[in-house]
C-alpha cells in the first residue's frame, strides 16, 4: 500500500529543502516514527521517476569536508504536484475513515 504513495512521500520529504538520497530516507523514517520500513534502495527508482517527470531536479554537490553527493530539489511542478497529492490523499482518507466508522454507529 505504501508503494502507491511513495512518490508523494518523497516529494513531501523534499519540501523543507534539497537533500540527497540517504537524508531523504532518514527524513521519511523519522517522520513515520519507523512505521515505513521499506528497503532503503526503493527510494532511488522513485527519485529517478520523479526527476524524469520534471517534479524534481538534481545536481552533484561536494561539501568542503565530505563526499560528492547527488542532491535533489523540488521543482515548481513538484511543489504543485505535492499540493494536489495532499488534497487527493485527504479526500481518500476521509472517505475511508467514514466507511470504516460507519459500521460502528
Amino acid at each position, binding site marked *: 500500500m505504501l508503494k502507491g504513495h511513495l512518490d508523494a512521500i518523497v516529494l513531501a520529504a523534499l519540501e523543507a529543502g534539497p537533500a540527497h538520497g540517504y537524508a531523504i*530516507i532518514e527524513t521519511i523514517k523519522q517522520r513515520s516514527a519507523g512505521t515505513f520500513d521499506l*528497503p*532503503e*534502495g526503493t527510494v*532511488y527508482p522513485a527519485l529517478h521517476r520523479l526527476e*524524469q517527470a520534471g517534479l524534481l531536479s538534481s545536481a552533484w554537490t561536494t561539501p568542503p569536508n565530505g*563526499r*560528492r553527493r547527488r542532491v535533489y530539489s523540488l521543482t515548481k511542478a513538484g511543489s504543485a504536484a505535492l499540493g494536489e497529492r495532499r488534497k487527493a490523499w485527504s479526500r481518500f482518507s476521509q472517505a475511508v475513515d467514514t466507511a470504516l466508522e460507519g459500521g460502528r454507529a
Partner: protein
Amino acid sequence: MSGAIDDYVASLRRELAFDPALAGRLASEVEDHLRDAAEADPAWPSPEAERRAVERFGLSREIAAQFAIDAVDRHARRTWITLAVTVVVTFIAMRLRVIWLDDDVLSPAPLIDRYAFIAALTVGVIAWFAFRRSLAALAICLGGLVASISAGIVRADLFANGAPVHVLLSAAGEVALVGVLSFHVIGLGRRLRRTAVLRRPGLEREGQ
C-alpha cells in the same frame, strides 16, 4: 579483498546493464548512500556495519527491476505516441490516394488498404483502454498498418503511375513512421523480456 558495499555496487551495475548511463550514475549514488549508512552504524568501522547497510538497502535485483518497470512505462508511452501519429499520417495518405486514383474499391489492394487500417485502428483503441502494456496488441496494430501501407503502395503503383508530389510525400511519411514504430515495438519487447527476467522469483538471491 572487496567489502560488502563494493560487492553490492558491482552487483547493481550488472543488474542495470540494460541502461549503462543509469548504471554509472546510480552506482556512485548508491555507494555514497551505503557508506553513509555504514558510518552511521554503531559497529563502524567493521564488515558487519557494511553488511547491515547493504541488507537495509534491499536486493539489487529488485531495485533494478523497479527501474526496468519504469523504463517499460516510458518506452510504452513513446510507442503509443508514435502509433497515434502513424495512424493519422496513414489515414491522410490513404485518403490522398483515394482522391487521386478514384479507383474500384472492390479489387483486393484497396480492400486490404482500408480494412487492415480499420483493424489496426480498432485494436489500437481497445488496447489503449484495456492493455496499454500489451506487446501483442501493438504488434497487431503494427501488422495492420504495414499491410495497409503495403497494399496502398501496390494499389497506387506510385512510381510507375507518376503520382503527384503530395501523394508521394504522404506515402514516404507513412513508410518512415511505420519504420520508427517497428523500432519502438521491438525495443519494447526487449525491455519487457528483461523486466520479466529481473522479476523472476527464483533468481532473487543472485542479486544480493
